[in-house]
């Protein structure tokens, strides 16, 4: 019943990107996101897109699988595009009632679309190619310096990995409880919202009870094996940076450098593109008028 929901959308494959150190991937994703926000310039977006396509190709994730996760944000993308098309001031193309569509608006909308789209695809590569365990290990290691400020980094990472570990177990439990209550005649598919909310009680109560019971059992089991926090605790899998990680680091630095140089160098590009669009459109209109006449 609940088996169709997949959480932590890891895609198993053998690729360079999968093998990279999780810390590097975390930093890499951050760098990529920042690079998208540094400049609002078509050429920067183009560079980012090329970079992204190469990474996706290297990661061996089917494009279909990547795009499946985008369904949820189509609406958000649409609203952003509409907002920019309708509310950007500049040289007007079409105007009626309170709506002005401008060249700047269209360009902005396109660039915003590219930015958001790449932002989401870029960050999904991280979770698609890194197992949740590696991800938490990476986060713990990256945030270690915060221990100076008494941030309980290890405890937080431990909490995260336990939570991730328990998601499938709780899903299974929910499935079982649901079946048991359906067998007792519970009506879970009712159209009436009140009946439906009431129908959740027989499922949520046993689920919480069992979650607390499991939490208690786990705490006991950890204590029985002398777990007492992160102090002096060694890792089973120690992370080492390898040659591929250093190479990726250089590539990443090169990419960021390229974005900055291009961004500064082609500062005036958006305005030029707008002018070109205007010229192009006027040319087309004149052309069609000429055809008619």
């Amino acid at each position, binding site marked *: 019943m609940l088996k169709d929901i997949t959480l932590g959308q890891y895609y198993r494959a053998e690729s360079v990107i999968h093998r990279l150190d999780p810390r590097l991937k975390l930093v890499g994703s951050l760098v990529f996101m920042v690079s998208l926000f540094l400049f609002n310039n078509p050429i920067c977006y183009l560079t980012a897109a090329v970079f992204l396509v190469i990474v996706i190709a290297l990661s061996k994730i089917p494009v279909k699988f990547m795009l499946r996760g985008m369904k949820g944000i189509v609406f958000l993308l649409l609203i952003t595009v509409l907002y920019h098309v309708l509310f950007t001031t500049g040289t007007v193309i079409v105007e009626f009632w309170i709506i002005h569509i401008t060249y700047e608006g269209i360009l902005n909308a396109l660039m915003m679309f590219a930015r958001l789209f790449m932002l989401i695809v870029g960050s999904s590569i991280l979770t698609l190619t890194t197992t949740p365990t590696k991800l938490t290990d990476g986060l713990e290691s990256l945030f270690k310096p915060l221990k100076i400020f008494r941030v309980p980094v290890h405890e937080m990472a431990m909490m995260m990995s336990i939570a991730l570990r328990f998601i499938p177990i709780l899903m299974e*439990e929910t499935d079982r409880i649901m079946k048991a209550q359906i067998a007792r005649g519970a009506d879970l598919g009712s159209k009436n919202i009140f009946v439906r909310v009431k129908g959740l009680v027989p499922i949520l109560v046993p689920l919480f*009870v069992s979650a607390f019971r499991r939490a208690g059992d786990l705490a006991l089991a950890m204590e029985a094996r002398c777990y007492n926090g992160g102090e002096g605790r060694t890792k089973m899998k120690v992370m080492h940076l390898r040659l591929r990680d250093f190479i990726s680091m250089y590539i990443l630095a090169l990419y960021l450098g390229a974005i900055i140089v291009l961004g500064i160098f082609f500062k005036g590009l958006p305005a030029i593109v707008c002018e070109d669009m205007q010229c192009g459109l006027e040319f087309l209109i004149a052309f069609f008028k000429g055809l008619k006449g």
Partner: protein
Amino acid sequence: MELKTENLTYEYESNSATPTRAVDGVSFVIPGGEFLGIVGHTGSGKTTLVQLLDGLLKPSAGTVYLDGEDINAKNYSRKKMRAGIGIVFQYPEYQLFESTILKDVCFGPKNQGLKDEEAEKVAVEALKRVGIKEEQFELSPFELSGGQRRRVAIAGVLAMQPKILILDEPTAGLDPAGREEMLSLMDELNRDGMTIILISHSMEDVAAHASRIMVLDKGKVFLDGAPAEVFAHVEELENIGLAAPEAYYILEEIRKAGLEIETENTVTVEDAVSKIKKSLC
């Protein structure tokens, strides 16, 4: 009520690359009033099979008939089916949710459309039947011991007055006295005309109580028949990771030690005792 399956098949993750076929082309008839024991190794598909019988899973192929009607047909009334078949899951004590035992047992009957007083009446009856005392009715389910909680959960299903009762390992984790009580409750219900389908890992339990035993292996029916018939296939059972009841092995040992004794058809401890007595006189 007669329960019948035809070529029943179920696959988990059927649209993935590697579907697990948990139930594979199973056909059988369970006439009303039978006490059927289902045994099988871990993962042989017992739980999946009974969930199919209760319509909680939709078969990938094949049909389940209740009194000749397909329970997965579009116009078949689910309510009618639920009134016919009750199912007690593995560790049912974890499905309790109400503030008092009585209220929890009333949940099923109320879903069937009974009025409060009527529901309470059947609930009280069911609770007494499983051996819960009247002074405990207003307790919270969480104040009870595990064994008592399980009885309350079983009462919750009994209160719906099913004609067929399916129990998935109801004795797991109970002490010997609790097991015996649970099994004699099933005998009693069966005597009153209820069909009992009991899943168990214990050969001794099914041997002593069931009138028919079905052995599952890898989703298929491996053996099906009266206890004596099924347990005559000791070697086959051992090959699929099961065993005959202990009593049989004890008699075998005695025979090997040199006593003239007949070991065939040893199903229950009583069988063994009478055979030992016979060979000693």
